[in-house]
């Protein structure tokens, strides 16, 4: 039986460089997996392939049994909004929308907006008092919590996080990681988290280490 995430012989070549050089990876559903490695090792590229934001030049990516190569651009968009939640290093919020609207934007693209549900999601990440604040009125940690709420509002099966604490101080990093841990325990979605911070990677159940576009180590922590 195929794992929830399966990557087979994935290569990603750009005009001047190869970001991935034959990656094979299987992640079971509900697992929290950290991908670590130095800059340029291919972590983010692998994460983009898993999220359908990019395609491998060679190899295959299966998510929940679906070969992403077979999806058209619109099918891929639908796949993303139904199955995947993203958290990026920068908060990447729409600057002119309030926290609530930023979360509801994800609902809008998914199906239909429900402000009470969006409000509840923000309360779950501790931002019940910041519903109508714009990103510029929030701290970095608060902004990232909004992206967590936005990523999870449509109950995705996978949460893909690319250096989610890269711009945060230790205190806020801890807050975010505790939040992710709590939500993961409650909902058991699969997490693939890219980081180069050992403090962050240790929250996972499995750590995959990459270097020069290849997986060089794969160790379960639990």
């Amino acid at each position, binding site marked *: 039986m195929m794992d929830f995430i399966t990557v087979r012989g994935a290569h990603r070549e750009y005009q001047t460089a190869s970001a991935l050089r034959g990656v094979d990876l299987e992640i079971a559903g509900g697992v929290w997996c950290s991908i670590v490695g130095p800059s340029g090792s291919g972590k*983010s590229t692998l994460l*983009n392939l898993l*999220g359908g*934001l*990019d395609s491998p030049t060679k190899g295959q990516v299966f998510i929940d049994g679906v070969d992403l190569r077979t999806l058209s*651009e*619109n099918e891929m*968009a*639908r796949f*993303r*909004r*139904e199955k*995947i939640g*993203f958290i*990026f*290093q*920068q908060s*990447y919020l*729409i600057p*002119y*929308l309030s926290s609530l*609207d930023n979360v*509801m*934007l*994800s*609902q*809008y*693209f*998914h199906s239909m*907006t429900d402000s009470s549900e969006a409000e509840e999601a923000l309360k779950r990440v501790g931002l019940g008092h910041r519903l109508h604040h714009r990103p510029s009125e929030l701290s970095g940690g608060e902004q990232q919590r909004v992206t967590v709420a*936005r990523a999870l509002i*449509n109950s995705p099966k996978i949460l893909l996080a690319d250096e989610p604490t890269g711009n945060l101080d230790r205190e806020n990093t801890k807050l975010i990681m505790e939040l992710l841990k709590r939500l993961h325990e409650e909902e058991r979605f699969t997490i693939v988290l890219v980081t180069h911070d050992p403090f962050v990677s240790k929250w996972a159940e499995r750590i995959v280490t990459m270097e020069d576009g290849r997986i060089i180590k794969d160790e379960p922590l639990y």
Partner: protein
Amino acid sequence: MLLSLLKHSFLRQKKAMAMMVVSVSMGTAIAASLIALSMDIKGKVSKELRSFGANITVTPKIEGIAGIAGQRRYLREEDIIRIKTIFWRHNIVGIAPALEENAELSYGDKRRKITAVGTWFKKELPLPGETAKFEAGVTTVSPWWAIEGSPPEAGGVVLGSSLSRELGVREGDEVLLDERPFKVTGIVETGGIEDGRAFLDLWDMQQLKGLPGKVSTISVSALTTPMDEFAYKDPSLMSRKEYEKWYCTGYVTSIAKQIEEVVAGGRAKPVWHIAETEGIVLGRMSMLIYLLSAASLLASALGVSTTMVAGLLRRLDEIGLMKAIGADGIQIIVIFLSEALIIGTAGGIAGYVVSIGVAKVVGLKVFGVALSERALLLPVSVAMALLIAAIGSLLPIRRALKIKPAVILKGAR
């Protein structure tokens, strides 16, 4: 959510949005003014072209043995006013009857065989069933006739300029026409065959020739719709529906047909060189107007497109993020087209308002009359503006759809 996105998009890009609305409204205003002109221009230019002369001539129908025997037939004077009762009666702007006969003109010891013409120079005719009157006569169909003196009244005659020179006749002299004395009331110069003829009042001519109530031709000046391919079809081969459409369109041929129906024994023929010239002139003017309209709309759409692309470049992160969190092509298109819808509607309404003023100024400058306002142009203007905005959005939408979220998110990092 869409409304919220649109509201913020407009608030954040006030200048750009205002530029786009202005661009759309300018293009729409020019196109709507030109369309207003084209709607009115046909009538006005057609009226101007009426100075070319009558475009329909009614002559007696000569058929069968009468034609073979060369027997002369006449039209009835009483039928003339019936021409103002046809379906397109309001398009009849001039009617002039003529009774042309050979006659002998004498002045002193000089005698000439000439063509004498009995006509009306200016005569008010009561319209059947109406209190209003219709001014008929040569002046209504051939306004370029220059008469030195005055038109012929009872017992008077107007001579063509070359004829008067040949005989040495001047205004006020007396001449004999078929031995009857007539006073020369004026000299007419047209530059045509009329310069060698003599013109009497129609009644005098009828009396002179013993043809009371008769006329030999009726010249009609009618405002017509330019002839198109359909107009040249043979009405006898048309389906009932086609025939109705042809009959109810103001083609010179359909008006001629209607005239034949009211003038007993008459055959109405378009004066083709005039009718065709009108058709060509009006057709070319219409084509010019349509091309200018299309050019202004296209220029406007380019303006919108350029501004929108510039706006898109500022929103790359936003669009990339939307795509990353699951927006598909249609949802992105909806956002851009909704903006275009607002810009188009605002630009269309503004363009219509401006076009009213432009059309008035152009109408006054060119035709001396303000063109009429047409409420119909409001939806047309809005539709054109929406088209401009939609065309202007095509390139930005195409570029937005090509945005790769991974590249944008990576590039911005």
